[in-house]
């Protein structure tokens, strides 16, 4: 264990009735989704009515909660022990986006938007849409008041930044000069408005047409003017959700693995959350390798193995000592990776979860992960 590091007490967080939202974030492939699900189960079994919102389409996770699949609606998880309840759902970003459009536009406009090729691209593949829709869904769940704890697992973004930036970027794009320019002719009722608006537009429109083809520009204009009508509501909601994240009832849990890249991302995320004044609860380091025989160092173990090999005795013991030395080296390396984080962020509470040989397959597995998260 890294010395003098404050311990992240996850039970205290999930037991506190004032905690309403837990956001798990971090690099891809560090066990974020499993952490979120395990926290959800533990919270439920300690009396909360919890819902886990995941963006990870892994069937395995659904199966571990006894659900054949997860969809855009919270489904009850059976087998939760105690008074609390657990629901789980998986974000369907296109569906969520469609619902927003349907809720904000009259049927004719909604149809125009939903069938536009740009909308289809935006709603299914814009690199920020998933993040934006995750936040939108979070806001919806929170407003519904049906759950007293929402645990959300953020998308495996290329960089941690995307998650916080996406709503703003989408907003900036839709509010931007370019979009205003494109919508201007529709608003002013004719092409002549272009000239008044910006002398440079001819140049730009020409370039766009060359680059994308005239049809694209036309599709885009239609899309933008249709979307423009509903977007006021969009921005307001994005802002609400952002404020919700900053509120005291929210706890950000950064998840990492003790590897260089994951720890670097974690550092970055911690700094970013501080900049945005988002409430950070602490860091969970998954897959930490420990040894039950840590008193025997890697160096001593290797030396002893060499000695036995030279003497040609106790082959089995030599192999075991080599194995142990490898394990201790790995542990030492992981320790160094964590030290880097700790020296940069000495006040961030940390919880470590030991590496397990197998993946989680059922509720019992999730329960064990939850217990390990809490047992610091």
């Amino acid at each position, binding site marked *: 264990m890294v010395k003098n590091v404050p311990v992240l007490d996850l039970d205290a967080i999930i037991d506190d009735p004032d905690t309403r939202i837990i956001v798990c974030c971090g*690099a*891809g*492939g*560090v066990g974020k989704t499993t952490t979120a699900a395990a926290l959800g189960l533990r919270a439920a079994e300690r009396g909360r009515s919890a819902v886990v919102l995941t963006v990870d389409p892994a069937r*395995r996770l659904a199966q571990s909660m006894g659900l054949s699949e997860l969809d855009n609606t919270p489904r009850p998880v059976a087998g939760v022990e105690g008074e609390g309840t657990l629901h789980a759902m998986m974000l369907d970003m296109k569906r969520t986006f469609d619902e927003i459009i349907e809720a904000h536009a009259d049927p004719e406009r909604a149809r125009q938007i939903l069938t536009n*090729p740009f909308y289809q*691209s*935006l709603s299914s*593949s*814009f690199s920020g849409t998933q993040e934006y829709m995750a936040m939108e869904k979070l806001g919806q769940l929170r407003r519904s008041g049906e759950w007293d704890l929402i645990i959300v697992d953020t998308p*495996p973004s*290329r*960089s941690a930044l995307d998650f916080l930036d996406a709503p703003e*970027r989408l907003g*900036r*794009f839709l509010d931007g*000069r*370019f979009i205003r*320019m494109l919508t201007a002719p529709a608003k002013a009722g004719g092409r002549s408005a272009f000239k008044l608006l910006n002398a440079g537009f001819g*140049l*730009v429109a020409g*370039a*766009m047409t*060359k*680059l*994308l*083809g005239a*049809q694209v520009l036309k599709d885009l204009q239609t899309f933008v003017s249709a979307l423009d009508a509903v977007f006021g509501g969009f921005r307001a909601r994005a802002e609400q959700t952002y404020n919700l994240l900053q509120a005291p009832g929210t706890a950000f849990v950064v998840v990492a*693995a003790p*590897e*260089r*890249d*994951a720890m670097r991302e974690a550092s970055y995320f911690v700094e970013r959350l501080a900049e945005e004044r988002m409430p950070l609860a602490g860091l969970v380091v998954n897959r930490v390798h420990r*040894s*039950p*025989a840590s*008193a*025997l160092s890697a160096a001593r173990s290797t030396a*002893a*193995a060499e*000695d*036995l090999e030279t003497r040609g*005795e*106790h*082959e*089995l*013991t*030599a*192999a*075991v*000592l080599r*194995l*142990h030395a*490898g*394990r201790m*080296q*790995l542990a030492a390396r992981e320790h160094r990776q964590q030290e880097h984080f700790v020296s940069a962020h000495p006040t961030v509470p940390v919880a470590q979860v030991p590496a397990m*040989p*197998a*993946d989680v397959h059922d509720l019992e597995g999730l329960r064990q992960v939850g217990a390990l998260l809490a047992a610091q």
Partner: protein
Amino acid sequence: MSSHDTDWDGVRLHVVTGKGGTGKTTVAAALALALAAEGRKVLLVEVEGRQGIAQVFDLPPLPYEERRIAVAPGGGDVHALAIDPEEAMLEYLEMFYGMRRAGRALSKMGIVDFATTIAPGFRDVLVTGKTSEAVRRRGKDGRRVYDAVVLDAPPTGRIVRFLNVTNEVAGLARVGPIKNHADLVNGVVSSPETAVHFVTLLEEMPVQETLDGITELREAGLPAGGVFINMIRTSELPQAVLDAASAGRFDPTELSLGLKAAGLTDGGPNAAALAEALAGEITEHARRTELERQERVSLDASGRPRYELPLLTDGVDLAGLYELAESIRAQGAA
């Protein structure tokens, strides 16, 4: 070219993908080193703006230009390029239309940002376009400038969409230069000159993602390459011992004697206690080995060549990269 035969002779574009945390960038870098061995010239391309190549080679952040970053074993050069989609778009405008001014105007107005973010199809076609151009580029002597190009591509979940640009762009741009550009890219990535390699760990989730990715690639008519199993931990423990340990029947008596013989119990913990503690480690290792065996069997069902790379216990540094490159060559992947 050397006389060294590889499984991928004729492949000039090596696309490397993998689930997050599998060491995709490290393997891409080692593959580039291996391909450059013995006097060849290889370009290593990164597209996600993470500066992963710079980190792996312990260099300051790379600019958007091709530069030599490493010398391969036996002579040979690895060049690197970190593609910035916005710069790629400006370059593209200038190269094909001479639109420098208009390009800057677009950039200023956030249109490039728009085009490269709203529709990842556009963004992807720009970076794959740039990569394809490097694959096909010829020098004054008419020979290819690079013997091979290694692309550190987006993760497995996004790879088919990333490469299948024609499809992605088709819905948006039915005609026009972007469409033509996409067709050109498609000509490269779906040709036998390209192979899409997967990096995985011997764990359930990355293996499943790899298998799904291979199926998706096939469905999209894109050429699946090899599977690189990364971070393998080996031991010399005999199978019989592993089997016993998996079943929870490891007998620490002999180990205890061995520890005494090695002088490890002098004045320290008693031999039996130490043997017991180590037995726990052995059991865990045995269980993991057994799971790994099952994952290997699953991977074999894909029919793709498999390469195994060791876990570098000291972490990935330059020496480690060369070690991985050697291993890649020894296994015939390069």
